[in-house]
């Protein structure tokens, strides 16, 4: 059960970290993230499925998964950020969220137009990865790989944020965008890059989850609530928070599936509400001081 929770947490982290980065840097609660996830899942199902059908080597399949999501994230992210978001940056936070919601609606239909109403299954990566025996447990190789990947991603994100020039620029912009601009940081470029990275990560979340679920309409809608819960719990804009939030939601969901399967969404929502009640800024973000 604990391991199930870890697996769940792993994919949630991949999805949520992009969302929290976008919020932290751009102060946008990106509803379209659900579309990135869905596109990633469908894209992986199609491309990687086709790849494996040709009997090409397994390792390439996994690589293709990453490449496909990067392409999706790049294209969608750029179009959205440059074409749409750019025009509404100054506006009310709520209006911006609605714009991302509108984009989400449009993309949902585009998915349906491209892939129709069928559901897709991508089982090859699971089969290829086989299974591992750890003591008495038999774990799916894919699951283990997923958790390892998530951990690696977390380390990479943490490293980039704290030890690279680019990461530090990002941190400055997260902290105070006006000050960053005053220091000559090209905030506009930072926004674009952040959004694209967020889109890629969202799509990646969908892609890695594709083999484990039935890829069908509505997966984008569902994941949004979960991703939001993770980000709200961990602290919006905090990458470390996304990690912790994902763990919490993952384990809680796993526990509720095992003990009280009916109340899964209910339990997650309760946890989210409880955390928001006691620490509205999430577990990791610092409270903004009031300025009179």
């Amino acid at each position, binding site marked *: 059960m604990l391991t199930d929770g870890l697996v769940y947490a792993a994919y949630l982290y991949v999805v949520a970290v992009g969302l929290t980065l976008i919020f932290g840097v751009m102060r946008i609660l990106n509803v379209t993230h659900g579309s990135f996830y869905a596109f990633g899942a469908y894209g992986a199902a199609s491309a990687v499925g086709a790849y494996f059908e040709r009997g090409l080597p397994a390792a390439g399949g996994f690589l293709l998964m990453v490449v496909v999501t990067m392409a999706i994230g790049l294209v969608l992210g750029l179009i959205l950020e440059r074409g749409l978001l750019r025009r509404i940056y100054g506006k009310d936070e*709520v*209006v911006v*969220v*609605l714009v991302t919601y*509108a984009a989400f609606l449009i993309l949902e*239909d*585009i998915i349906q137009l491209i892939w129709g109403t069928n559901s897709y299954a991508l089982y090859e990566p699971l089969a290829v990865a086989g299974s591992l025996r750890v003591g008495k447990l038999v774990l799916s190789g894919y699951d283990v790989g997923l958790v390892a990947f998530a951990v690696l991603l977390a380390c990479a994100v943490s490293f980039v944020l704290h030890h690279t020039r680019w990461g530090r620029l990002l941190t400055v912009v997260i902290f105070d965008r006006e000050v960053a601009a005053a220091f000559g940081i090209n905030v506009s470029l930072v926004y674009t890059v952040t959004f694209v990275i967020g889109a890629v990560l969202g799509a990646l979340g969908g892609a890695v989850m594709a083999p484990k679920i039935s890829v069908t309409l509505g997966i984008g809608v569902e994941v949004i609530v979960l991703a939001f819960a993770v980000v709200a719990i961990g602290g919006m804009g905090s990458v470390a928070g996304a990690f912790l939030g994902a763990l919490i939601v993952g384990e809680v969901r796993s526990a509720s599936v095992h003990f009280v399967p009916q109340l899964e*969404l209910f339990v997650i*929502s309760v946890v989210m*509400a409880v955390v928001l009640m006691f620490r509205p800024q999430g577990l990791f973000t610092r409270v903004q001081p009031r300025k009179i």
Partner: protein
Amino acid sequence: MGALVFLVAAALTPALPAWIVSLAIVALANALVVLGLIILWRAGLVPFGQALFYAIGAYAVALIARYTGLRDVLLLLTAAAILSGLAAFLTGFLLARYREIFFAMLSLAMSMILYGVLVKTETLGSTDGFHVAPPTYFGYAPQGGMRLLLMFWLVLGCCAVAAVLVSFYLRSVAGALAVPVRDSEIRLEFLGVSVNGLIHLNLVIAGTLAGIGGALAAFAIEHVDPSMAYWTTSGGFVFVTILSGAGFVAAAFVGSLLFELLRSIAYDVLPGAWQIFLGSALLLIILFLPEGVGSLFQRVRRPPSHSRS
């Protein structure tokens, strides 16, 4: 002038085709939710979970009718209003302490909690929901065309009353202070006003309106299901609110009717791409008419230098 519009609408109805009347009924029921959201938006708050109260109102009438056999419309509506108002009052203690995005998220979380409960509870019909019997009007159970007509007049009547009461409220000190809350809470606190108290009041008003809207929708569609509490339902309400703009009470009704019309047209003309249509419409409105449809009226009626009432 508003009274005239309502009277004309009431009089014309028998002449209109049934599908328009049905559409208008749902639109007007939803408009009540939007009315509540407009009040909150003026104060700078946009909850992403009004569907919570909408669903409470809907399920209230459905359950009471099913388990007690009571079907009188006035009784059921009053029950829905009381229950959703109470829920808003209780949740308000918590919600009134938050602002901006945290307020929105907490509101969302609460509505999803209800959704989670509704979906998994067998007795409440879980995902399929259940049928709602049409209401009776002081003992009279209308049939056929009369049923639709009476329903429309009922909804129209509720909207008229709500419009009058909300207009009155927005002109009162408590209601008019919504915009100052958005501009400077500090100034209000230092003038002796409890801002959280005001917000709590607004939440109760919005919640009650949403509950009544939900009840009316339940009567109209003759069905309730958990999706009435889902985040996409809340999203729809916020969508219409932005469409309407926060300037006028009337805008809620115009905006809601427009939205339902757009949605129907989209379904009919582009069944596979209606969301693209709707999403694009929303984007266009946001980009080119940021103050919503209501602002069009303002430009026509009076010069823009006068501040909003």
